[in-house]
């Protein structure tokens, strides 16, 4: 239990009182007092999200607007390309893309979503990194952009096969959106930003709502019997089954996007030979990884037995090997698979699907195999 002083210094999202009233078990997370689970429990919350719809409070995440001083969104996009290896210029109005802020060593400072809202860019960044990200943006983009921290907005994720039907009742435009569409929509009469995206592998939406309207909108969504509130515990098991990285665990300042198996997120225009190749922090190292390969790689891991293999477990090439060859960066039990799942870094020559490895858990070497991710097929509406 945190000391009373720590408790007091924890920040609260606009939905804090609602979480408490719903019986949420509150824990400190990234400086916020957040629900790790509700009375249903992590297992039921996870399975409900995959079967119906789960509602997540992700208001602790950072929301930012990048407004071009020239008035042309392409200028904001070009400016942001100085900090990320993604093609931002090519994001069409009303579309969103996954990106990473990189550092001079080619490591990842944070991962984020970037949407083109027509006259400005809308960014969603990780809670633990948001202050550093905002400072980073101000330090590098202030000549070209006005950087607005949208701290007066909450962020709600609605995820699962029944998310579309649940949101359609409040937002006529929701059903016609496809995966990674993003833009302003009225939801229950409230002016929101809605994207068709999420962090569970399921079809679903993220809804940015003014803080003052957040509880009313959330209560309205929860009136639908298909929608249950879901805590951070199930959010983590859902994203793990979906093979999605958790910043600070699966990716950090010491992993490049290529090592992290995120090549798909770096468009050809920014790679060697592309029309705007390089020009982002760490480009030399990251492009060298693209051109020549990296010596290690993030892979999915499936255990043969039932014992969860968790973050920090060392990986070995065989049962008797003295030296570890890698480490698990996320791992646990996948409720939809009813089996343990993990991801971690291994030497590239041991990263082929089916490669047999061992994880050390409580002094025992448990057999596992490199496995394809996502572990659970995603259901994005393309």
């Amino acid at each position: 239990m945190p000391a009373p002083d720590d408790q007091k210094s924890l920040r609260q999202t606009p939905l804090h009182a609602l979480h408490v009233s719903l019986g949420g078990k509150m824990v400190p997370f990234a400086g916020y007092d957040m629900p790790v689970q509700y009375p249903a429990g992590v297992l039921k919350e996870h399975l409900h999200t995959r079967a119906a719809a789960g509602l997540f409070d992700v208001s602790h995440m950072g929301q930012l607007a990048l407004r071009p001083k020239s008035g042309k969104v392409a200028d904001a996009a070009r400016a942001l390309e100085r900090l990320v290896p993604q093609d931002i210029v090519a994001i069409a109005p009303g579309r969103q893309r996954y990106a990473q802020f990189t550092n001079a060593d080619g490591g990842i400072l944070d991962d984020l979503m970037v949407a083109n809202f027509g006259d400005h860019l809308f960014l969603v960044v990780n809670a633990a990194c948001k202050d550093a990200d905002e400072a980073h943006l101000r330090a590098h983009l202030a000549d070209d952009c006005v950087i607005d921290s949208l701290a007066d907005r909450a962020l709600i994720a609605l995820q699962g096969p029944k998310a579309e039907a649940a949101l359609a009742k409040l937002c006529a435009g929701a059903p016609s959106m496809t995966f990674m569409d993003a833009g302003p929509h009225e939801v229950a009469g409230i002016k929101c930003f809605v994207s068709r995206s999420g962090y569970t592998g399921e079809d679903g939406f993220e809804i940015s709502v003014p803080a003052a309207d957040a509880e009313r909108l959330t209560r309205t969504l929860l009136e639908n019997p298909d929608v249950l509130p879901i805590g951070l515990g199930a959010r983590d098991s859902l994203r793990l089954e979906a093979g999605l990285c958790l910043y600070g665990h699966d990716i950090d300042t010491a992993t490049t996007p290529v090592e992290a198996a995120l090549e798909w997120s770096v468009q050809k225009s920014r790679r060697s030979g592309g029309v705007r190749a390089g020009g982002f922090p760490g480009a030399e190292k990251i492009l060298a990884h693209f051109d020549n390969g990296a010596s290690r790689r993030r892979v999915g891991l499936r255990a043969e037995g039932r014992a969860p293999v968790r973050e920090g477990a060392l990986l070995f090439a065989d049962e008797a090997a003295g030296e570890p060859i890698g480490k698990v960066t996320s791992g646990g039990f996948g409720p939809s698979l009813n089996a343990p799942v993990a991801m971690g870094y291994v030497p590239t020559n041991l990263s082929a699907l089916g490669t047999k490895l061992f994880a050390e858990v409580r002094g025992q070497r448990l057999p596992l195999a490199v496995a394809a991710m996502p572990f659970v097929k995603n259901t994005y509406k393309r």
Partner: protein
Amino acid sequence: MTTTLYTSDHEWLAIDGDIATVGITDYAQQQLGDVVFVELPKVGRSLKKAEAAAVVESVKAASDVYAPVTGEVLEANEALAAEPALVNSDAQGAAWFFKIRMADKSELGSLMDEAAYKAHTA
């Protein structure tokens, strides 16, 4: 006659002569949440009091179960390997973890009775 005692680490022991049946309390299973895996000590293993004897894992985390007394493991509840969720549904009954032949019954002196345990978790 069977007496049930409790540890401050939320284990229960049903004492029958020299043999104690050990499990985790209903309070502990509520705190852990949905149990997805249980690792039990091997039969014949000698356990020292306070040594990690078993592991119980929820979706979120792994927790050690400590030997509440010194002795030899006589039996482990294999039903838990097949159905870990028994720990949630019947923690103080069908979901016992292991049976131990106690080496020194004086160790029981530091354990709590039901009333003291209830006060401990209140």
